[in-house]
């Protein structure tokens, strides 16, 4: 399966989706002008990955900031992952960032996937 490896920018997150090495990560800042367009290839990749997924998938979110349009798409990413067996989410937040911690907790209440919360 192809690897998605996007460098982060000031308004888009770093994305690394690598089935072979078992690395699945979205990190940095997410406030693109068109969040639906930005996340569509990622959603497509996850759907394709679900056809032949690894036995276990540890998906890491390490976001510094995301806007509300991105939050909708992050929920779409989580919903796509929900359909895949063996997925767990590592939700990282900066130790003094209560809002990012709470955002993760809210996402965990909206999907049936185990979340682990970690600080950085």
């Amino acid at each position, binding site marked *: 399966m192809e690897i998605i490896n996007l460098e982060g920018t*000031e*308004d888009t997150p770093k994305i690394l989706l690598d089935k072979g090495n078992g690395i699945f990560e979205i990190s940095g800042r997410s406030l*693109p*002008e068109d*969040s639906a367009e930005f996340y569509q290839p990622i959603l497509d990749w996850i759907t394709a990955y679900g056809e032949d997924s690894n036995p276990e998938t540890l998906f890491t979110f390490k976001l510094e900031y995301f806007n*509300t*349009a991105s*939050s*909708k798409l992050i929920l779409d990413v989580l919903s796509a992952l929900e359909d895949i067996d063996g997925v767990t989410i590592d939700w990282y937040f900066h130790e003094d960032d209560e*809002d990012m911690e709470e955002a993760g907790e809210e996402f965990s209440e909206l999907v049936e996937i185990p979340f682990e919360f970690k600080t950085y």
Partner: protein
Amino acid sequence: MKYIYDLHKTMLSRNLILVYEGEFTQEITKSVLAMAERNMDSMGEESSIKRKVFNVMVECLQNIVKHSDDFNPLSAKRNAAIFIIGKEDDRYVVTSGNPVDTEAKESLIERIDEINHLDKEGLKAKYKEIIKSNSLSNKGGAGLGFVDMARKSGQKLEYDFEDMGEGFHFFSLTTTILRL
């Protein structure tokens, strides 16, 4: 050229650290955010406060970008809007102003009043309700901007509409972030 001195005095007396007037695009949003971030960094602002201000600024700026096509089509400066950041000893004040038509005015009043009547838990429930049910609008908005601004700031959203004539109103929106 006295207006320059007057503008300077107004900015000082109102504690405004950044004023942008003109067209709003994603590129300009990024520049304004970068300037405000550098400003807060140079003043040694706490990271938790910086994040909240950044958050409110993004929603505010992207709201303007998304809706700038709807501004007064009769005006040559139809994309013109204003964005202001003020800093006082105990707070940051993020303000935007842009023209809206009467239909948008009524819908804004209804939505903001509803949000202002919710407490912390009510806002959280509203956020979850919207994120679960809505798809993105044709402008790419999630309909969560005002709820998020109210949640992150922990304060009521203040607004005002000034009549501009020709069925348009100047919509000003102010969000306060306390520096506690």
